[in-house]
């Protein structure tokens, strides 16, 4: 198999807390339930689980960072951890480092604050600082300034599959020699407008609502996931210990109705086939699902997997969102990190070295990633 890129650093912030260790702390204990009923997410049904990252984990507490949109603070925390983990100092690498920043909703809470002044006071009194923070590009800009990154900067706003799209773009930039290292970060924040709008559009469950007025849908959450990618050649030359290798990325779109998902899962089926390079899922030892508890989206994913035939039923399926909620763009990143942790620690019995990571958006877009997780496997692939 052809390998485009290796992962050499990880960072995460999730409702479980700050750091990869917080995300994976309970994984071993919880995996049986995450695998047992992948398409019937009920963990957060009727309880008061909020999906928020605990305030206590915010370490970036100087005045400037406090004014930053919550999603970008989460992103910076995840990037700091991933860079530290990889041992790479971007400012030493000049323009050979690129940023791939992904989000679904972006800095919506700042946009709301800006609009409060615009509509309730006067356009002349809006805050210039808030204005610059309303842009989706602000997150990548903050990372570039904080770490001295002068290479390409992509701000990817691709629904729930942004991280997987960004991995493909980063692999492409690495293979073209545009960069030697890629900082990927996917982030989304929880805010009042977002939560209410997801409920009103029938996507999210009204978590914690005593009325139970929305019975179905996902549990909205926030978080950030960061990965440091490099090429196999750089990995060899710089003696990095790869944590995983990117084997294939596939994309699909159902090209059907706006803001609806094709329940037959055509988009995800296309993406999965492109990622594995054919009709056979026997190379895959585990599928880290997009499943989030939304009945139509979950049905679409089930159909997409079933389209590979009866043998696909034997592949363990992990629904991580039972544990961390639906954190939109950040979700596939958290799935990748968890799958690497699982492979490294042998949490799921594996017959092959490959895991499949799925992402599916309400709008009909999907992506899938084939990953060889675990340092030994990634090393073997490089050699």
């Amino acid at each position, binding site marked *: 198999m052809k390998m485009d890129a290796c992962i050499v650093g990880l960072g995460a912030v999730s409702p479980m807390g700050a750091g990869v260790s917080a995300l994976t702390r309970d994984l071993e204990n919880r995996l049986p339930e995450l695998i047992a009923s992948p398409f019937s997410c009920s963990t957060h049904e009727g309880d008061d689980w909020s999906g928020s990252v605990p305030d206590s984990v915010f370490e970036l507490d100087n005045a400037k960072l406090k004014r930053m949109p919550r999603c970008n603070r989460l992103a910076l925390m995840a990037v700091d951890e991933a860079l530290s983990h990889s041992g790479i100092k971007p400012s030493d690498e000049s*323009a050979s480092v690129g*940023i791939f920043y992904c989000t*679904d909703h*972006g800095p919506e809470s700042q*946009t*709301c604050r*800006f*609009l*409060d002044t*615009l*509509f*309730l006071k*006067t*356009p*002349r*009194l*809006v*805050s*210039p600082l808030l*204005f*610059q923070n*309303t*842009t*989706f*590009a*602000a997150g990548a*800009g903050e990372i*570039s*300034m904080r*770490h001295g990154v*002068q290479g*390409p*900067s*992509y*701000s*990817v*706003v*691709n*629904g729930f599959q942004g991280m997987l799209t960004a991995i*493909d*773009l980063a692999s*492409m*930039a690495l*293979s*073209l020699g*545009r960069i030697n290292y890629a900082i990927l970060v996917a982030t989304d924040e929880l805010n009042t*407008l977002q939560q209410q709008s997801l409920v*009103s*559009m029938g996507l999210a469950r009204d978590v914690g609502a005593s009325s139970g007025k929305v019975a179905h849908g996902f549990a909205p959450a926030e978080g950030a996931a960061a990965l440091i990618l490099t090429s196999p050649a750089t990995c060899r030359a710089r003696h990095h210990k790869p944590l995983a290798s990117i084997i294939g990325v596939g*994309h*699909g*779109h159902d*090209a*059907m109705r*706006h*803001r609806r998902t094709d329940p037959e899962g*055509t988009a995800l089926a296309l993406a999965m086939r492109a990622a594995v390079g054919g009709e056979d899922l026997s190379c895959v030892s585990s599928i880290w699902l997009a499943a989030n508890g939304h009945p139509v989206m979950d049905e679409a994913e089930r159909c997409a997997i079933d389209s590979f035939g009866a043998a696909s039923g034997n592949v363990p399926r992990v629904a991580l969102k039972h544990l961390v909620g639906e954190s939109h763009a950040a979700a596939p990143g958290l799935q990748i990190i968890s799958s690497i942790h699982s492979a490294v620690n042998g949490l799921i019995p594996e017959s092959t070295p490959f895991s499949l990571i799925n992402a599916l*958006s309400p*709008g009909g*877009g999907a992506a899938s990633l084939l990953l060889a997780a675990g340092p030994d496997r990634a090393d073997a692939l490089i050699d």
Partner: protein
Amino acid sequence: MGAICSIAAHTQALGQALRNGDSGIRTLSDRDPSQYHSLQAATVPNAIAPRINADNLLPEWSDRATRLGSMAFDEAIAQSGLPSARELSSRSALSVGTTLGGMCSGLRFYEDWIKRDVWRTRWLRDFSPYAMNDHLMARSGITGMSLVLSSACAASAHALGTAFDLIRTGRCDVVIAGGVDTFTDLTHAGFGVLGLLSQSDVKPFSRERTGLVLGEAAAFLVLESEHHALSRDAEPLGEMLGFGMTSDAFHMTSPEADGRGATEAMRMALACAEATPDDIVYINAHGTATQKNDATEVLAMEAVFGLDRMESLPVSSTKSMVGHTLGAAGALEAVASLVSLNEGFLPPTISTTAEDVEFNLDCVTASRTSSATVAMSNSFGFGGNNASLIFRASAS
């Protein structure tokens, strides 16, 4: 190619308007002057695009960005001659640059909510920048990658450059790439409070430049591999040769004074195109007419092309006619460059006179007959995003 902006509803009209040096900048008559830093805007008037709100394929709640985007997208598809949805399958992709996405709908929703406590879900459906892509994917039958890049004013230049990379790495045969942004109160107020808006004309590179005027536009280009184009006897309108992108790592809204990031983006594009500075015979500048941008961009161009060459290298800013269309600017300026070069002229920097030009460069102040074929187009955005594209017109 397809385009819609304040001076034209399609590419043929755009060519004529650019040649004429038409201005799309108008004074907004429906705003209270005491509330805004400027009343100038380059919006798309219904008079030149009466079909904006009459697209039967779109739901009635569709955002203005979706409507403008669909018009330019349809024109580009039609001009490309790609025959059917089958032709636009999973080996095809959509790559869109936008800063605001469906912000018109978002503002409509938010004003109802915050001022009248009325919740109208319909205005949220197109709010996400990704929403327009879903419309365009359904419209075209593309089932491959759907990409939205939101790197501020460099967004659609990045979308085009990424499309270029997707094709040359063999990931795709066809990528429809472009950008869309609308004129909104959010950006109008925001750019105003940053002190970047002109209260009259836009005068790029002039001593008397006072800032930019916000516009709105959509522009798309169908990019296709040479092999795929030849296999269906398509007639190329131009060729994309190079793409460079960098970050300033300096400031969120100001360019680095020495233009380092912009310089490197241009050099990367030249290297990518395997071209030398002498191969470039026209530059469509970012040219916003703000004090800092124009000075920085000239420094960067001087660093790349040399002081002597800048005296004779034609440079213009079409933002003087169509305003700053933010995320759409890179794609619109790519279309404007190719249309102009294919028709044998260089578009002007209107409102700037030859006598006013502050810098030592050949600023095209009136449209000029030209046999130039290779052009560079620059886009620089908030967050320190820089992009440079190089095209060859089909005239060659």
